[in-house]
């Protein structure tokens, strides 16, 4: 029985951060299990396209630190950023060693490209499938190492007593059964919360910030939630991401007159706002890649060409591609120190669900993949190897209340359709808590989301089956999204000044 077993370490989430931590934990000899809401390779990491930053020499490491710090608008912690930038060469070396097929230069060096806000071309890549190839290589390595996975189990709550993590409660999606999984240590690697902007995000529908919300419910400290990065280029209509590498390779942004209007390689927040200002004024914005030619496009951005063709029916070598900004990355999350520790003993957070103060107010392209690998290892290094004694939870109220909650959802009569609420939540979030924010908009959003929360409590699901009930999962995710949206609005209301991705139109300074 899973409930009786005490793991050394539970890792929640099977993206790049979670898998890196799992491989490191196994190597360290820990009894580790990866608990994932999806299947391991279905995670958000698969969508990272552009690259992973690594400075080329000591001088460039300084520049990398500087660029990251600058982009963070002073919110980044120089020690954490220095650690990450200094670790980058060994991170790339390790990924290369375990089999990540990085693209090479003619001399056989790992090829690097420019991404926005970087003072030199330092993003290593695998064509434009960098995240996908890293994720799958990590998965292959996990298979080799015989790492245990518990798939399609959704995190519900953290079991914490006396400021010490004891385990987690999960929903087994296959059976709708609520279980506890106990461990001496827990690493949260559950990803970001871009899905609160559902319909206006490049993120997977699964990026609902479950880990962040579970942490908030358990009084784990969170920070920086107001900082949501809007990617400049998602395809109009489908919100499918077109990587920054398209501009890194020389692509232009043009308005409907065909004129360029912004330095394409400025930081993402600057480019996204320049685009959205035009769109709000009734303009249409396009990505122009025609001058690059088919050969270069096939070489450097085959995925983008394929996606544009599939989703917009456009051949990027011949035609302009209509784009719009979309929510892309959550800079904020669970607060951790430089060792990925939260304020709860033996509870760690890594990757997009964490805020280790590396991205601050705005993340640089190519730093997220670097962050997940670097701190996936750091977190495991911070875990004590000593055979600490496990003190079982004294109370079972979290498990009991989670079971009762699921039973109630699966048995109560429903009048309203929760899908309608979902749409209204993401629309108000994008409109009032999006690229441009001001006090009245945020106040209005707050009231609307409170109201949506009330409607949510009165709504429910019509599907009462216990077998693979995705309505139940989506309903729980929506509950998480509502809780989290309120925290994002709250943080955005409190920060009166514009900073990075958090832009206050009413900031006169």
């Amino acid at each position: 029985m899973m409930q009786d077993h005490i793991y050394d370490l539970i890792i929640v989430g099977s993206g790049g951060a979670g898998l890196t931590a799992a491989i490191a934990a196994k190597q360290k000899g820990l009894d580790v299990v990866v608990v994932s809401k999806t299947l391991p390779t279905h995670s958000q990491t698969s969508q990272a396209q552009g690259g992973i930053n690594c400075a080329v020499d000591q001088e460039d490491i300084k520049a990398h630190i500087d660029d990251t710090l600058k982009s963070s608008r002073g919110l980044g912690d120089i020690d954490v950023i220095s650690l990450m930038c200094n670790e980058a060469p060994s991170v790339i070396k390790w990924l290369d060693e375990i089999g990540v097929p990085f693209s090479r230069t003619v001399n056989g060096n790992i090829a690097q490209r420019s991404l926005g806000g970087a003072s030199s071309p330092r993003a290593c890549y695998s064509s434009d499938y960098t995240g996908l190839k890293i994720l799958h290589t990590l998965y292959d390595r996990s298979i080799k190492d015989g790492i245990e996975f518990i798939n399609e189990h959704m995190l519900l709550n953290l079991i914490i007593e006396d400021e010490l993590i004891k385990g987690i409660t999960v929903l087994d999606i296959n059976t709708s059964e609520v279980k506890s999984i106990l461990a001496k240590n827990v690493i949260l690697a559950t990803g970001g919360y871009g899905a609160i902007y559902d319909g206006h995000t490049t993120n997977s529908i699964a990026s609902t910030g479950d880990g962040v919300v579970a942490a908030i419910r358990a009084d784990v400290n969170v920070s920086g939630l107001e900082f949501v990065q809007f990617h400049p280029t998602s395809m109009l209509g489908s919100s499918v991401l077109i990587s920054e590498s398209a501009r890194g390779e020389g692509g232009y942004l043009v308005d409907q007159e065909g004129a360029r209007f912004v330095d394409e390689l400025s930081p993402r927040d600057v480019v996204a706002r320049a685009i959205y200002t035009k769109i709000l004024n009734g303009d249409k914005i396009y990505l122009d890649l025609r001058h690059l030619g088919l050969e270069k496009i096939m070489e450097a951005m085959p995925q983008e060409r394929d996606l544009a063709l599939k989703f917009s029916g456009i051949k990027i070598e011949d035609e302009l591609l209509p784009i719009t900004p979309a929510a892309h990355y959550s800079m904020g999350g669970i607060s951790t120190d430089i060792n990925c520790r939260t304020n709860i003993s033996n509870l760690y957070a890594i990757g997009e669900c964490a805020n280790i103060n590396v991205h601050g107010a705005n993340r640089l392209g190519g730093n997220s993949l670097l962050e997940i690998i670097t701190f996936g290892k750091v977190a495991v290094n911070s875990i004590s190897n000593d055979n600490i004694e496990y003190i079982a939870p004294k109370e079972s109220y979290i498990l009991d209340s989670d079971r009762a909650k699921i039973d109630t959802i699966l048995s109560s009569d429903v009048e309203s359709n929760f899908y309608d609420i979902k749409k209204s939540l993401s629309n108000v979030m994008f409109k009032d808590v999006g690229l441009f924010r001001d006090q009245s908009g945020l106040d209005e959003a707050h009231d609307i989301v409170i109201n949506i929360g009330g409607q949510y409590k009165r709504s429910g699901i019509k599907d009462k089956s216990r077998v693979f009930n995705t309505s139940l999962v989506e309903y729980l995710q929506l509950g998480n999204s509502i809780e989290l949206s309120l925290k994002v609005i709250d943080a955005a209301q409190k920060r009166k000044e514009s900073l990075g991705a958090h832009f206050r139109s009413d900031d006169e300074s």
Partner: protein
Amino acid sequence: MNLKIIDKQYEIEEKVDTILAALKYIKSSSNQELTFRSGCKSGVCGSCAVVVNGIEKLACTTSCNDGDNIQALKNSQVIKDLVVDMSHEAKRLQNATGYLNINSNSSILQEDEKLIDIQSNCILCHSCYSSCPVYEVNKDFIGPFALTRAYRYINDKKENDVKSHVDAIQTNGVWDCTLCGNCSMVCPANIDIKNDIMKLRNKSAQHGYMDPAFSSNTAGMDFGGGFDTGTPDFGFNPNF
């Protein structure tokens, strides 16, 4: 627009671009019980593969047309509606040794990396297993994506231990494939899996293995080994 999903007919009043959009529309309006997997909606996470009009497709990248017939992937137990059991994935990859065994520390050139570029785009969507007639009758067959992954590492200059990969794919592996080409046809990442399997046969021959069917038919004859054309020399193969 009318759609058939598993055995039910649905009418969609809104304009929907993709199969996934249609599924979402139905789930959020008329039939909340309709169950399917989805994720990135961008064709890279591999969670939404279904069978559309008899052919495996990613729901998120496939346009939706009047009269489309949507079914669950084949050759795997249906858990509910369009959701099938994918738990065989890890075992298949394990059996095929779909990972780097021992790093050779060789220097890698542009052309080396290109050799495995396409194969390493696999998203494990399981379309190939659904289309595979061998897997349909033999659930121990290592199968398409796992074989392609073995090929990806065999062909990787970083791999110093090619032999253990080759050894791993002999039983219920490369020789069991009928080379029907279904997997190559349905792969959303455009991987020519059948071609990879043919090349794996050549690699196997280089390591002294022979097609068991071929060798038993020629028992006692010495062909000297070391060659294999990837196809049996007799019988009709529609692919050639």
